[in-house]
């Protein structure tokens, strides 16, 4: 089983390193050919407007949507990745490209600008002790559809959620040493491919 990291812009190498530490075969996904080789795809943090635009121009967005609909690709979005997966962006730019996969409404930069970015100990449903979560100009989930399970919340809103083969977090598990969220996603990929 191979897991890919969408390699368009953002924290790509950080995710690849975490996958390697979890002893999973990983690959940077930059085109449609490499996308076909993976059972799981991580969409990293970066600028959602940049990543969204570039995956549309180079035809990756359609391929990701298609494989997700076929039900043979698990996807994990962190921060910008969460925004790209969402069905609705409450404050998106007009015509902001989206993958439109997960039945959630997100708000960009929900905690404010970079100076309001923060780290904290966060309780994550299904993990027995809290994890250090780093939020950088992070989005939140404002609304969820019926098939969505909430995995972590703050007073401002939902910061982690899952819907079938889709996982999204507002924070950056690739920036801390803790591998548990990556392991959680790897388990999702395993159960999908078995």
């Amino acid at each position, binding site marked *: 089983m191979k897991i890919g990291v969408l390699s368009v*812009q953002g924290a790509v190498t950080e995710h690849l390193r975490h996958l390697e530490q979890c002893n999973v075969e990983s690959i940077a996904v930059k085109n449609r050919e490499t996308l076909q080789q993976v059972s799981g795809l991580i969409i990293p943090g*970066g600028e959602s407007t*940049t990543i969204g635009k570039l995956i549309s*121009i180079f035809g990756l967005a359609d391929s990701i949507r298609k494989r997700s609909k076929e039900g043979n690709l698990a996807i994990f979005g962190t921060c*910008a990745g969460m925004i790209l997966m969402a069905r609705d962006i409450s404050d998106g730019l007009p015509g902001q490209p989206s993958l439109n996969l997960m039945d959630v409404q997100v708000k960009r930069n929900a905690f404010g*600008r970079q*100076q309001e*970015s*923060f780290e904290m100990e966060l309780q994550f449903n299904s993990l027995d002790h809290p994890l250090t979560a*780093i939020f950088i100009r992070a989005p939140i989930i404002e609304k969820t559809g019926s098939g969505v399970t909430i995995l972590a919340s703050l007073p401002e809103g939902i910061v982690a959620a899952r819907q079938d083969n889709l996982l999204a977090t507002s924070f950056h598990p690739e920036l801390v040493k803790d591998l548990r969220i990556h392991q959680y996603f790897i388990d999702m990929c395993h159960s999908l491919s078995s």
Partner: protein
Amino acid sequence: MKEQGTYRVKKGMAQMQKGGVIMDVTTVEQARIAENAGAVAVMALERVPADIRAAGGVARMADPEMILKIMDAVTIPVMAKVRIGHFAEAQIIEELGVDYIDESEVLTPADEQYHINKHLFTVPFVCGARDLGEALRRISEGAAMIRTKGEPGTGNVVEAVRHMRRVMDQIRQVLSKKEDELVDLAKVMGVSVEMLEEVRKEDRLPVVNFAAGGIASPADASLMMQLGSDGIFVGSGIFKAANPEKVAEAIVQATLHYDDPKVLAQVSKGLGEAMPGVEMSTLTSADRMQERGI
């Protein structure tokens, strides 16, 4: 409990910019063009470096009103420049809520000995460097991101290439030294042994390293990425070109597909006239911004 402005949070912000292009803008319209082209951030300035060079005199931080207008106009991060060592300008810019401060040699230095103590700020800083020693000294002072200095406002990539190659070469030296040779290398480079150990631990510069100072074409962006840059700053190269929208989009796409000549050839077509460049030998020592703040 939420902790703001930790070094991890500051450094993480730069990590999210990797593989992207940060563009100098002087108006709301330019900021929108940059965002639409796929820039990961904009640098709000009163004049692009080529115009600062032409105008001469003392170059200071931009008018806060103009920075605030640009912050309102786009959803991507906004950066702003302050003079080297001018911590009061930095305090003012931080108060505006900008996302990143560039302590920049493009503006006239305010202090010829000391840089800003960047640890004291919640907002992250990026600083220029010509070699690994400069880069590590800026990191010791709290910089969360480094860029090559290059030679700003020239549209000539030669100095950015020199600086990136030098940093990469010196990193290889640090990695290949025996443990007991590090003390001497630290002395030569003017940095602490701990900083060199940090480089060895990370197997690279411990923070994100962008290219800046003279990048004016998609090919320039590709060159810098192939030399190991984490991303690209374009100053005068976009809005001094005949067709800024096209050049902006082309440089963004060239930065992503820097190793794919087919895409590079495609995006390089029909961009119109590039910014007029400057030959390095025509600059006097006083004209060379890269020698400020070392």
